């Protein structure tokens, strides 16, 4: 069954892509910027989803996709003009479709009411369209009668009894083959329904020099005698209907005899013609006049196909695991290259020797490979941004506010691991901005603002990090209220002097929630403190700035990747450790008078007249039993995410380096005070410190007892 699962997986992956296409196209239509290509693209996407869903028997999905597709077809044919209202209906339908896909994938079921409502809306649009069509031109519109196509498969299985004879003329377009359908398979399926014969018409096959290898020149006439009924025959062609000319007519008597011999004779003739062509000397071929220009329509089709070909060839789907493996291996390559270079130097090779020069070149090459491999994982944030319009629509709908969304910099690239974890905090920030930031339309009008609020989400690269700004043009933060709540909840003392900025950032404090009643949206039991924590877990920071009456801007900055980290390599005891650069404020060499004992076995260090706890990291991690003399060591001043500063005492600083992050949890488990591990140039493992935990832990232990809670590990293990 795993092959089937693979295909299913591919189907859902493709669905995701198609949904993206649908959403993008519909948004363009909403903005009135849609050309025929866009509409076609949306139609094709929905059609493909329907096709795939049919193959997997997702009947609900098929049924809905069909209604959706039908409406889109009307748009495509120009029978239905899309204005703001229609676009809204289509967008809602796209949401329902996405949910149905998710449901088919094993997600939660879809609200039947919503589905019905959307279906109804679509049907209503079509109804309007029908009126127009009747009044306007009547060019074969009747042929596009959709009701019979929405067949249920059960009905088909038990079709009318008694054999009927059909004459099916099937002329595929090139597009049919381009979509990986196979004429032969369809014909075989036809024949499987009953008895019949097939004749191939090769009359349209051009001479060899004019032959487009990807063209479609053959057509077939199938004479079929079956008990399955016409619907069953039509069903076979259901998914290729648009890519072929198909006529199915009932005939009174089987006309096998007339079709059969013609087929063979024609093929024989064609083969003879082809052989003659091939036999022509090359010189003659060259001399033949250029082939006649194909008719306009034909040429357009060819160009389109060529473009499609390029598009598919320019990207491939690769499992993330493989890329990760590659990244691991390249990391290893870098390490080994460094080791080799060191050994060459130890062996006494001169710096200008050919070997040393070779190593330099190798080093450049490996760095380049490393950069390129990291770039494979980089993806535009577009995939996250694409989910936002729907979110904004939904939240705006629930809150009764009118909100527009503007996104910028959606092609800003960032590592896939960051992308994956970006969605939640971003979602929460946008919910918050709409729920708390944007005012209701009447209040906006009263304030002299347009009734529709605007949420702007922008991504950009800034000094080796990605910065994402979520801004709204709402009321801004009501500072007195925020202050009162913070005081009321005991988060700040009543008389505290806070700057505007500090007041704004109070909303990130745990236990702070401005809405009296927990609202359905931003509420959900989590506040901005959770957003802040999840961003910090990614090594990022978030802040807010606000202007009363004008709106607020949330700014989050994240590392471009979670696979590498800029760190300072230090030594504690015999071990090398890495301190993330983002946590470091400054480094200093303590003087004799700076350190003073505090309490039983704590020490404080005086940094420009403020006293900070001094943590001997080697002791803290159990590398050494007794603290070293601080004067012999180096102090690294760090700031934890809650803004508290501490001083970490190490033996020495080795330097700053970019390190590849390796999981310690995969094979071992969490180690208190350690965030992850990395592999150094000498091939040894070094631990990356979790500064927050290290400082918090040290504080906790000192409060709890003199004896560090040495090992929760042992306790759990034994």
């Amino acid at each position, binding site marked *: 069954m795993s092959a089937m699962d693979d295909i299913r997986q591919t189907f859902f992956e493709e669905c995701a892509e198609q949904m993206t296409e649908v959403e993008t196209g519909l948004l363009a239509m909403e903005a009135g910027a849609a050309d025929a290509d866009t509409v076609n693209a949306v139609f094709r996407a929905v059609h493909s989803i329907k096709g795939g869903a049919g193959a997997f028997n997702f009947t609900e999905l098929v049924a809905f996709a069909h209604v959706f597709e039908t409406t889109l077809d009307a748009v495509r044919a120009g029978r239905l003009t899309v204005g703001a209202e229609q676009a809204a209906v289509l967008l809602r339908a796209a949401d329902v479709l996405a949910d149905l896909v998710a449901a088919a994938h094993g997600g939660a079921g879809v609200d039947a009411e919503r589905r019905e409502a959307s279906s109804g809306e679509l049907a209503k649009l079509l109804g309007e369209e029908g009126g127009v069509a009747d009044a306007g031109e009547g060019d074969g519109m009747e042929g596009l009668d959709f009701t019979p196509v929405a067949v249920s498969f059960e009905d088909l299985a038990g079709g009318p009894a008694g054999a009927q004879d059909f004459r099916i003329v099937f002329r595929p377009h090139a597009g049919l083959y381009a979509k990986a359908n196979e004429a032969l398979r369809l014909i075989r399926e036809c024949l499987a329904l009953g008895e019949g014969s097939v004749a191939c018409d090769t009359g349209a096959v051009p001479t060899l020099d004019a032959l487009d290898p990807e063209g479609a020149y053959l057509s077939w006439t199938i004479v079929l005698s079956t008990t399955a009924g016409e619907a069953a025959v039509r069903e076979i062609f259901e998914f290729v209907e648009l890519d072929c000319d198909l006529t199915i007519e009932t005939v009174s008597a089987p006309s096998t005899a007339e079709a059969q011999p013609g087929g063979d004779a024609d093929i024989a003739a064609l083969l003879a013609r082809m052989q003659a062509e091939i036999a022509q000397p090359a010189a003659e071929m060259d001399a033949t006049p250029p082939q006649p220009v194909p008719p306009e329509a034909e040429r357009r089709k060819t160009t389109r196909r060529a473009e499609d070909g390029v598009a598919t060839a320019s990207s491939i789907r690769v499992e993330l695991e493989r890329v990760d493996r590659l990244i691991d291996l390249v990391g290893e390559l870098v390490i080994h290259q460094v080791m080799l270079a060191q050994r060459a130097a130890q062996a006494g090779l001169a710096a200008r020797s050919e070997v040393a020069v070779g190593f330099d070149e190798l080093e450049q090459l490996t760095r380049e490979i490393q950069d390129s491999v990291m770039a494979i994982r980089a993806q535009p944030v577009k995939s996250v941004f694409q989910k936002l319009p729907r979110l904004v629509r939904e939240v705006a709908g629930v809150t009764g506010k009118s909100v527009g969304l503007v996104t910028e910099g959606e092609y800003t690239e960032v590592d896939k691991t960051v992308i994956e974890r970006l969605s939640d905090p971003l979602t929460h920030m946008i919910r918050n901005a709409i729920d708390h930031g944007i005012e209701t339309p009447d209040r906006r009008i009263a304030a002299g603002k347009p009734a529709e609020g605007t949420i702007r989400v922008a991504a950009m690269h800034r000094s080796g990090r990605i910065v994402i700004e979520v801004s709204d043009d709402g009321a801004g933060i009501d500072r007195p209220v925020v202050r009162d709540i913070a005081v009321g909840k005991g988060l700040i003392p009543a008389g505290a002097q806070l700057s505007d900025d500090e007041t704004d950032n109070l909303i990130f404090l745990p236990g702070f929630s401005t809405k009296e009643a927990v609202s359905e949206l931003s509420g959900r039991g989590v506040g901005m403190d959770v957003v802040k924590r999840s961003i910090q877990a990614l090594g990022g920071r978030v802040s807010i700035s606000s202007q009363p009456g004008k709106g607020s801007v949330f700014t989050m900055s994240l590392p471009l990747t979670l696979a590498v980290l800029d760190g300072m390599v230090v030594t504690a005891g015999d071990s090398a450790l890495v301190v993330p650069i983002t946590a470091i404020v400054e480094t200093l060499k303590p003087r004799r008078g700076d350190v003073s004992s505090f309490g039983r076995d704590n020490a404080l260090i005086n940094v420009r007249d403020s006293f900070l706890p001094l943590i001997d990291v080697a002791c803290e991690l159990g590398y050494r039993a007794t603290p070293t003399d601080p004067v012999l060591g180096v102090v690294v001043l760090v700031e934890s995410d809650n803004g508290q500063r501490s001083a970490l005492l190490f033996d020495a600083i080795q330097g700053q380096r970019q390190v590849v992050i390796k999981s310690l*949890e995969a094979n071992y488990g969490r180690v*208190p005070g350690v965030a992850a591990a990395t592999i150094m140039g000498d091939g040894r493992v070094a*631990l990356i410190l979790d500064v927050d935990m290290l400082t918090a832990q040290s504080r906790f232990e000192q409060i709890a007892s003199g004896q560090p809670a040495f090992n929760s590990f042992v306790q759990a293990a034994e």
Partner: protein
Amino acid sequence: MSSDDMRDATTKRELIAFRIGEQEFCVDITTVREIRGFVPATPLPHAPAYVNGVINLRGTVLPVIDLGLRMGLARIEPTARSVIVVAKMEHQLFGLLVDAVSDILTVTDEAIQPTPNVASELAQSFVRGVIALEGRMISLIAAEAIPPRQLDMAA
């Protein structure tokens, strides 16, 4: 893929035998990924004494367990013959530091005698049977019993 000892008595299985101090032990070969020479490990803070630390196994951070200490014997003093047996349980890789690898044994399940009833932690927790071979006594250990439970929880 656990070295479960409830198999058909006539099935042959291959075991890797190694030495810790004066005693010989073996584990099922299917749990062993590779055997590599001793390299000094980076100590892990707050780890049990028998966790030697972590080493770099071609880009993977591999915890190394001092199998002697883990089974309540003496700490293994690394020598030139010391090796790290890389074992895999489920999705978790770990290294076992032993004094030396001696043999690959092929035995039938019949040849594996039940663990003698002695009240030692070693016998209770780790040993799943003993094998008599050319006058030597080799204890079969269950690899899944070696990593402490928290390792599993975290993995």
